[in-house]
């Protein structure tokens, strides 16, 4: 008993000592500011700002990591020192609570990163009219009519299209090398849900590939989850077994890329490079860089100007980026082809959803009513085809292209 007592006592003393020691030097760490904010910039308007960020998961998710990195970069670039990152906020009332707590703590602008946060951010925007709420990937800002609630997305279909060109050139190289015949140029795609964002993504990717490899076809399978490593791996494997010679995916785990690396099938990635894990099969990756949007919105608050209800990042704003072309795997001349396409997209001579490049049930479309204004009955409400192309991300920032075009086979549509 005596020994135990002595142990407790000594532990308590160590504890007290340490506590006193660090208390003197530590200063106030309890003001809610993140410790890794940038130095300097004290004199600018940004120094007085407080910014809050809400993330669905933490940095272990590639999706959230992409946002977290952008948040830190934007704050550092602008000289915002007082910002709070709230991670692991579920898509329920917890999101409202997190937003309300951030507003209580004096945040001037609050961002959320996941689609399911939207309704709760709107609720918070109604309750805190003096705070700006910005929601990435949401669809309701343009119909909600709130001054302080905003959506943002990027024209990621352009990035997908460019990645598709890389895929098409790889297919051509495989045909030229005699590895496959032109008829066997079948692409596989692992999607999460039959959500417009995914449909828009795989269709633009496919159109990019077919623009350089006319015989290309595609099969798509869905996992019913944004992050399910096993399902994504199995989905990719199923596509490979079906005869797909190149795989891409729209889901957040490493499931599909690792399945490709194991099988030796080229892979076009999303949300960041997977070259370190898949050096022999990784081709290129497209992703959205959220830094420009964060900088735009924070600057608007600092200067007292209005933030767009719907903000669409583009190649020009630096929001749509391609990362790390793997020259060991990609075909010759790929970089040049990308550069040409980027120039054509930027000067308006090339449109991703050019109606002359695809058909639906064998017919070329001249009109299509898209479901732009979100409602429970999915009512089509906006004419999206004009001037010979489908106007994606123009009537709202989040994608609404949901056509099932010819050449793409959906293996399942359960989700």
């Amino acid at each position, binding site marked *: 008993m005596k020994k135990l007592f002595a142990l407790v006592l000594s532990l308590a003393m160590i504890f007290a000592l340490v506590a006193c020691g*660090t208390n003197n030097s530590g200063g106030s*760490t309890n003001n809610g500011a*993140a410790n890794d904010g940038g130095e300097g910039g004290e004199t600018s308007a940004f120094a007085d700002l407080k910014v809050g960020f809400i993330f669905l998961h933490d940095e272990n998710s590639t999706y959230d990591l992409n946002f977290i990195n952008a948040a830190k970069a934007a704050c550092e670039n602008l000289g915002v020192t007082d910002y709070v990152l709230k*991670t692991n906020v579920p898509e329920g009332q917890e999101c409202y609570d997190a937003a309300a707590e951030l507003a209580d703590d004096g945040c001037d602008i609050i961002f959320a990163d996941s689609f399911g946060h939207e309704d709760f951010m709107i609720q918070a925007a109604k309750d805190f009219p003096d705070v700006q709420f910005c929601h990435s990937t949401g669809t309701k800002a343009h119909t909600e009519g709130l001054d302080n609630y905003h959506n943002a997305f990027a024209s990621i279909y352009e990035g997908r299209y460019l990645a598709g060109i890389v895929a098409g050139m790889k297919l051509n190289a495989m045909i030229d090398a005699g590895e496959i015949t032109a008829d066997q140029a079948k692409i596989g795609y692992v999607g999460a849900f039959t959500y417009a964002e995914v449909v828009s993504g795989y269709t633009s990717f496919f159109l990019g590939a077919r623009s350089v490899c006319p015989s290309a076809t595609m099969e798509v399978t869905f996992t019913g989850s944004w992050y399910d490593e096993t399902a994504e791996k199995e989905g990719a494997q199923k596509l490979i077994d079906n005869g797909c010679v190149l795989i891409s995916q729209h889901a957040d785990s490493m499931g599909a890329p690792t399945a490709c690396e194991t099988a030796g099938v080229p892979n076009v990635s999303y949300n960041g490079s997977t070259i370190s894990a898949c050096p022999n099969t990784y081709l290129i990756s497209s992703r959205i860089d959220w830094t420009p949007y964060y900088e735009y919105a924070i600057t608007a608050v600092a200067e007292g100007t209005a933030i767009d209800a719907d903000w669409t990042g583009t190649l020009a704003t630096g929001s749509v980026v391609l990362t790390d072309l793997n020259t060991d795997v990609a075909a010759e001349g790929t970089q040049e082809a990308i550069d040409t396409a980027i120039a054509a997209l930027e000067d308006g001579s090339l449109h991703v959803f050019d109606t002359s490049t695809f058909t639906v049930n064998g017919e070329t479309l001249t009109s299509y009513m898209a479901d732009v204004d979100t409602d429970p009955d999915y009512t089509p409400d906006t004419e999206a085809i004009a001037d010979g192309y489908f106007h994606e991300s123009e009537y709202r920032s989040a994608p609404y292209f949901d056509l099932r075009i010819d050449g793409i086979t959906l293996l399942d549509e359960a*989700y």
Partner: protein
Amino acid sequence: MNKQQKRFYISKRTDLPWYAAWGIRGAAILLALIVCAVVTMLMTGENPISIYATIFYGAFGTARRTWITAQELAILLGISLAVTPAFKMRFWNIGAEGQVLIGGLATTACMICLADKLSNGMVILCMIVASILAGALWGFLPAFFKAKWNTNETLFTLMMNYIATQLAAYYIIVWEVPKGAGKIGIINQSTEIGWLPEIVNQYLLSIVVVAVLTGAMYIYLSKSKHGYEIAVVGESQRTASYAGIKVERVIIRTMVISGAVCGLMGLLLVGGINHTLTTTVVDGRGFTAVMVSWLAKFNPIAMIFTSLLLVFLSRGASEISSDFGLNHSFSDILTGIILFFIIGCEFFITYKINLRKSAEKEA
């Protein structure tokens, strides 16, 4: 070594006064905090005092934080109350997660399908009935099979969780907005049909409901004939049937009550708090409730404190992760350490460690 008598031996305590028991618990918490402080220091170099201050701030720092903590406490306590009668009967119900979720699913169904057919009051009435019935059904099925064919209730209730999750996942796809999103979003956000009424603020309703429930469950378990029957069945089913208690009936009745209370918690979660349904809306509380109930020795009043402790820790922990830029897992480590000590100290309350005389001399 084997031949030597061991230096320590363990004996069961018979008459530990209550203050000594609480003294041991207090010491355990203190020790846990010290170990946490040391771990924090070694791993992160942060000042432990400011970590503790942040934990406290996260749970009670502002009026809103306090309200949210109280609301979280209410939900966890409510689910813990729900599983308690079954546990007292030695019926290992680990299906609270599914029972709450199915109650939430029933609530959601009423909110979505009846919104344009009935008045707000009628919708809420349907929600209450439907959620309680759904929860009760999820409790009834394993109990019925247990009573009739002596199936294993642990596996049965566990499997019922998965059925509830899959059903919820299915209907979320059916009701998703917009198409393909896999999310329902806030239900009736503009009309607020089927939203349980607010009293004073949006947090108080669940707190009041659970407060009433706590008192009712305390009386039910310790003062009513049913409660006595539950205790007897828990002690020994044979004694119970010898004493003329219809064991099968008690098992089924108790599990129906257990499930019904879980269903009610589903109603509060969906109709009163979230106004949406996700498969993770219960967030593991169906399992945490097991711990809350056990730590409190099935005493509803003591459960207030055990659930407060857990909610306090998890709320504070998430504050740490955002304030210090630490990963969320770090807060799980701290919670784990504290729980280890709290659960471990029960050993010292139940048993006494004796030192042999000879060993004492040596020391």
